[in-house]
């Protein structure tokens, strides 16, 4: 089924939209989640959550590129899940619990200042990506957006493994230089 037809199903609020999305983009989204989480159960959950988010977002949204739209949702959910798991690993003691409780008292900057900063960083990263040669940009995105392994990227683009590593090394150096030049402190 084509994207426009799937989107029509969403707009018509037909539940078949979910199964059709699963059919067309299930593997794609699962792959994104898997590369980040490396856990079957968590990946499945993230993919299912993606369909729910999409169901809630469409309408009013009507994304031009459904794959990217769904992929971005899966990626964000997977990153959140990853952070959640790693935070849990870091502290199981009472101290961490106490800190978490106290954290509720801290004003939520994310809603104001941090939101703006995150958007600014996104804009900068996009600007940076546009300055890269096409192949370099592709390799960077495959690694840090899709979190693919070096070998997968090499196979995808018919490159040598070392070329992929070198390309990424250079791009990271460029990004660092770019962020420093822009005066960004994370």
């Amino acid at each position: 089924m084509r994207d426009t037809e799937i989107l029509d199903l969403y707009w018509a609020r037909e539940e078949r939209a979910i199964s059709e999305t699963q059919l067309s983009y299930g593997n794609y989204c699962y792959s994104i989640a898997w590369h980040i989480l490396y856990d079957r159960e968590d990946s499945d959950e993230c993919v299912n959550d993606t369909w729910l988010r999409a169901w809630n977002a469409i309408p009013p949204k009507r994304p031009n590129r459904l794959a990217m739209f769904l992929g971005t949702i899966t990626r964000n959910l997977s990153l959140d899940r990853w952070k959640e798991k790693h935070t849990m690993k870091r502290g199981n003691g009472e101290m961490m619990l106490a800190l978490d409780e106290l954290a509720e008292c801290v004003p939520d900057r994310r809603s104001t200042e941090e939101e703006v900063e995150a958007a600014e960083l996104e804009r900068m990263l996009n600007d940076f990506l546009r300055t890269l040669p096409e192949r370099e940009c592709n390799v960077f995105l495959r690694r840090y957006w899709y979190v693919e392994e070096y070998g997968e990227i090499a196979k995808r683009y018919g490159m040598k493994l070392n070329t992929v590593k070198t390309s990424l090394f250079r791009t990271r150096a460029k990004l660092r230089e770019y962020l420093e030049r822009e005066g960004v402190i994370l």
Partner: protein
Amino acid sequence: MRHHGFEESEKEMSFSGESRQGQALRIMEALSGADEELLERSENGSVQDISVYGKRGSRHQSLWRYARPCAAVLCLAVVGVLGWGGYRLTRGVNDMSSGGSMNDMALKSVEMSADGEGAAPEAVPEEGGAAGQAAGGMAEEEEVDRMSQENAGDSSMGADTDGAHDLGGTFGATGNSGDSGMSQREGDKAEEKSGDIQPGAGAVQEGATESATEETAMLDGEGCPAAKLQELTEAEARSREGLGDYIPEKVPGRYSFESAFCNLDLQEANVTITWSRGMDSILWTVTEVEKVPETVDIEAPETYDRRLYEIPYAETVPQEYRQSMDSPVFAWEDFTLEAVRSRMIAYSDRGDTDTPRGNFAVLYPNNIVVRFNGRGTAEEIWEMFDSMKAAD
């Protein structure tokens, strides 16, 4: 994210103790906002998609299919032409250097020039002519003999390798190989010639000539003072107190002992041993250093792993890693087979063997540094290190 100038925000970040991983995660999250267009492009630019496109457009596919064979045929043709040209050129030069008269050489060079094989042959008769005028046919024969003797040394050791600068100080100056010995004799020969030209010079001039001879004899081919080397047998090298235990008991298959020596110019106790196997060679130097060299961080492969970079290294290796990449020193406790693998690389150089080659050093307790420079598989080299008495 903060901009410089907001000092309080920096403090805030350090207070919150956000790790580098956490900061990296913020970049990762920000990447979620990457342009869909760019993401889509990264999907479309893949090899798989090219082949899919090929199915749709048969014309494109057929071009793609035939382009590579055509390129291969073209490459073969170019290689063939170059090979034939090189063969003709080499034969011409060999003929000239192996006993033909100066007239023959000149004639051949004219022929070659007429064949249109470039400017290189033109330089040969000029040299030959000068030598002929100065020394004549006998001297030419001696030169050929000497060259053939020295070529044995050159072919085994001169073929190497990455860390040529490592060898320069010690090995390059040995009498039985390399440029230094030859140039020293050339210096002597030049001295003889000058004697021939002015046989009746006064005592003062003779004295000056003698001192000049001594000076010349002390210089190597680069005009640098030649190293004082004490030749050793393999057994003598192995019995050197404190150092012999760091010479491997086991060498890779078909390698045979070539030479061993101590560099007497160095303050530090040292012994060097070499093995060769056809064009392959191994140079193994054990030194008791006074100043302990800085070792590489095994957790930072970018500082020593050659596999991460491509030739030309001058362009791909970052400035800050150049030194460690050229000659890394591993601490013995960090030294593993994987570390050896990171340094032993096979290069597909034309006319060369495909044996992996590389160089590195290992710092052992008591300030002993073992420097390896040569060829072999990583496993073979690892076994060498493992077979040292000191490794027990």
